[in-house]
């Protein structure tokens, strides 16, 4: 086969590494160092290589000693720095595995340990490795890290990440040869004796050896202690680590005695301690002269050990040299920390398959196919994808939303509200539980009725809101906001299980059990009447009442709740029939489907807050003007005590108000800050919501403004991110139908 290196073409052999081929062709140099641009050549035969770095196509910083030749391979030498290029990412994946014994290292002692082990056994080997009976042998697989003593991360053939949970981990990781320190120890042709042998004693090459350093990386990562071994002149594993054992050369056993170590004569700026980082003995001496005593300081001053080889051939020499310079024993210096990964691993391998469409789930409701088919524009709400609006031919968002709002206020409109969180609360103590969790009281709530509720965090800030329906003597269903459904159920469970275990109450998520459609507008009855036998007139079906029956032939629970101020019915059906219900509603009469944007406008006209938009974790129900939802009679509820703290009861807290721009066509930018005068710089609050109102025929906004409720009529200025402050008048938060006259729809004719 043929391959290209630095522009010249060479013949290569099957199974040969790029480094081996270069050396065989007599190329003992061919590389340059990162800082000083000194000529360098292949130095080792394995992953510790400090010099021979190449770029192969889009792959940067490959070690020539690990690159397996293939026909047509084109490699360019790199001076310690690679190139990132835009190219399609390779497909990578990850895999979980469990075993009784995991052996790292396929050498003689590793294979022996694996062969002797019982149960499920996995053997990892960096290079190629023969199979072993009853053992899962993963070759060309490098162990990157040992976490918490029983969890090993490994990468197989550069594309599969293994996450292996092992009862026992056996480290048979062997040792790395290190160079001796002498002037010119970085010259092309100088190579480690082990590499010299591996490459068949190439002509012109000079074998050198400064002894061997055990691969103690995984042991140390897992918290194993190290001890300086005089004989081999390197740190070795020391003491015990539950579930982890070292065998073979990593323990120091079987390694040759290290040659005696002394600081070399001659030009210390020619003696390389770290070849990849281009650091010399002179640099190290300078660091000591600067007053540095700890190995970590010397490392940072000189950058020894920070190269892509992580100092595999440099660190031990650095310890020995530093000890000489400081006149201490190497053992006193310890080592720098060993941090995963043992060899560099590409981002895409770690990321695996959970990228692009699999990066994070998109949650959709049973009605979703209809929304897609009808051209909805969607909005991400948490993981949910909800219709934001349904543009008709040529409509932009503004036009579509004005039309959808007008339909809800003047005729009838429908919204898919299936994403509401829903929690079934059952048990003899259900009422007591709700009274403790919500700020308001439920004692007077009758079966078949529902009530708006608010809950606070323990420090009194608005957590969520929703509707509590009493559907039985000891059974309630609570709704939550879309984004908070999981959080609220977890919150309730935490209090139930950890603080109030004596309460006989049980919680079940029914969020996806029910699909829900909101039918909104003065003609809501006209739309529903043909589809149901449930009496809909205000007398027999009052506001905040619940009825059971059928809608469009589907068993349904119908609730008269309104998030718009208009006459509205929520129709709840079995989730599997949600689409059927929706299609029936959409084709009955001429209901206008509307999305989250119109819903936001409609609720804002009535000053109904959106948790997370009007609130940000610093807003109390009082700030929102909701004193009426805070029980005065209950002894306690979650958050009650915090509402009595000096700061949470200040009169000048930011309060929810509406803003009417002086220019009725000016739309305030959501997020704009409020100031008292155009040139003022002291913030008095911010705009939380801002819309064009079809009902008002003008723009309006909701804002949190310092002492806002005492400042009606005052003109303040909304400062946008760009452009001039916009004057707007502070008014009462409810800007539409203050008296609530539209709630029951048109008076019966």
């Amino acid at each position, binding site marked *: 086969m043929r391959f290209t290196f630095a522009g010249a073409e060479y013949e290569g052999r099957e199974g040969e590494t790029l480094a081996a081929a270069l050396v065989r062709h007599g190329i003992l140099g061919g590389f340059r160092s990162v800082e000083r641009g000194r000529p360098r050549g292949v130095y080792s035969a394995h992953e510790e290589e400090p010099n021979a770095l190449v770029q192969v196509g889009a792959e940067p910083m490959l070690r020539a000693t690990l690159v397996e030749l293939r026909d047509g391979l084109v490699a360019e030498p790199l001076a310690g720095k690679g190139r990132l290029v835009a190219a399609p990412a390779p497909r990578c*994946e*990850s*895999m*979980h*595995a*469990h075993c009784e014994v995991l052996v790292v290292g396929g050498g003689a002692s590793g294979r022996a340990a694996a062969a002797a082990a019982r149960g*499920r056994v996995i053997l990892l080997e960096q290079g190629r490795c023969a199979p072993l009976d009853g053992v899962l042998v993963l070759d060309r697989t490098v162990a990157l890290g040992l976490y918490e003593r029983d969890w090993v991360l490994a990468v197989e053939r550069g594309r599969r990440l293994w*996450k292996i*949970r092992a009862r026992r981990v056996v480290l048979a990781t062997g040792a790395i040869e290190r160079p001796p320190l002498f002037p010119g120890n970085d010259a092309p042709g100088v190579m480690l004796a082990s590499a010299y042998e591996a490459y068949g004693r190439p002509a012109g090459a000079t074998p050198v050896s400064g002894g061997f350093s055990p691969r103690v990386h995984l042991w140390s990562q897992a918290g194993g202690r190290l001890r300086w071994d005089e004989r081999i002149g390197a740190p070795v594993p020391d003491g015990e680590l539950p579930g982890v054992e070292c065998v073979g050369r990593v323990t120091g056993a079987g390694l040759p005695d290290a040659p005696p170590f002394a600081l070399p004569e001659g030009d210390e700026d020619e003696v390389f301690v770290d070849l990849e980082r281009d650091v010399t003995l002179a640099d190290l001496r300078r660091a000591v002269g600067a007053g540095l005593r700890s190995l970590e300081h010397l490392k940072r001053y000189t950058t020894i050990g920070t190269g892509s080889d992580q100092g595999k051939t440099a660190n031990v020499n650095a310890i020995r040299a530093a000890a000489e310079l400081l006149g201490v024993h190497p053992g006193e210096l310890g080592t720098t920390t060993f941090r995963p990964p043992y060899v560099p691993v590409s981002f895409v391998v770690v990321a695996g*398959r*959970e990228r692009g*469409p*699999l990066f*994070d*789930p*998109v*949650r*959709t*409701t*049973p009605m979703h196919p209809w929304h897609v088919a009808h051209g909805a524009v969607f909005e991400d709400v948490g993981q*949910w994808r909800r219709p934001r609006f349904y543009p008709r031919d040529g409509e932009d968002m503004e036009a579509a939303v004005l039309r959808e709002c007008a339909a809800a206020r003047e005729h009838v409109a429908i919204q898919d509200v299936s994403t509401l969180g829903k929690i*079934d609360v*059952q*048990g003899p103590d259900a009422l007591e539980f709700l009274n403790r969790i919500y700020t308001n009281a439920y004692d007077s709530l009758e079966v078949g009725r529902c009530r708006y509720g608010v809950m606070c965090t323990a420090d009194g800030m608005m957590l969520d809101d929703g509707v509590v329906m009493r559907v039985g003597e000891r059974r309630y269903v609570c709704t939550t906001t879309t984004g908070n459904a999981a959080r609220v159920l977890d919150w309730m469970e935490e209090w139930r299980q950890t603080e109030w275990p004596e309460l*006989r109450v*049980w919680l*079940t*998520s*029914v*969020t*996806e*059990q*029910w*699909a829900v459609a909101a039918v909104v507008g003065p003609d809501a009855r006209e739309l529903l009447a043909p589809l149901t036998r449930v009496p809909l007139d205000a007398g027999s079906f009052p506001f905040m009442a619940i009825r059971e029956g059928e809608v469009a032939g589907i068993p349904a629970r119908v609730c008269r709740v309104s998030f718009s101020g208009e006459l509205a019915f929520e129709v709840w059906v*079995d*989730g*599997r029939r949600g689409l059927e219900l929706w299609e029936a509603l959409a084709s009955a009469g001429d209901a206008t489907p509307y999305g989250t944007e119109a819903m936001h406008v409609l609720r804002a006209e009535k000053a109904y807050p959106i948790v997370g938009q009007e609130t940000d974790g610093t807003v109390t129900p009082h700030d929102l003007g909701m004193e009426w939802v805070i029980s005065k009679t209950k002894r306690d509820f979650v958050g009650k005590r915090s509402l009595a703290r000096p700061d949470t009861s200040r009169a000048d807290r930011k309060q929810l108000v509406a803003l009417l721009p002086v220019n009725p066509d000016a739309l305030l930018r959501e997020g704009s800050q409020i100031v008292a005068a155009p040139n003022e710089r002291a913030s008095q609050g911010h705009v939380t919501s801002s819309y064009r109102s079809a009902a008002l025929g003008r723009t309006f906004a909701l804002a949190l403004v310092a002492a806002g409720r005492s400042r009606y009529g005052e003109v303040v200025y909304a400062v946008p991110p760009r452009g001039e402050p916009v004057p707007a008048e502070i008014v009462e938060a409810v800007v539409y139908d203050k008296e609530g006259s539209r709630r029951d729809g048109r008076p019966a004719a």
Partner: protein
Amino acid sequence: MTGVRLREVALPATVTVRGEPPVAANATGPVDGGLAVWLGPDEWLVLGATEADYAHADAVVDVSASRVCFELAGADAAAVLARGCSLDLDALVPGRCAQTLLARVDVLLLRPEETTWRVLVRPSYAGYVRAWLEDALREVE
């Protein structure tokens, strides 16, 4: 490698029941006409029952529409799941069940037979889970 078959399986009427479970922790078992699946020390699922069947339990909730079921069948089915599930699947023998994570999603894992696995998920996640499983299948085929 032998192929793995992926299909969606319809679930019968299902309820969540509260009280003393009729099955041991993380186990399944037959209960008059249905299959009981352990969910917690005071909570279990019955596949094949209605609220009326458990009127005397501490609590019972119809959750028939709250889960969909994917079935993986074939010798390498476990190898597909192992790509996104950190459980020791060898220990999850037929008759056991587990609530855990598959990729980014909460799942209820059942193993009706040695080489047949059932993955129950909330319907809103079905699209993601199906896409994830189909993508994982590419790795074992």
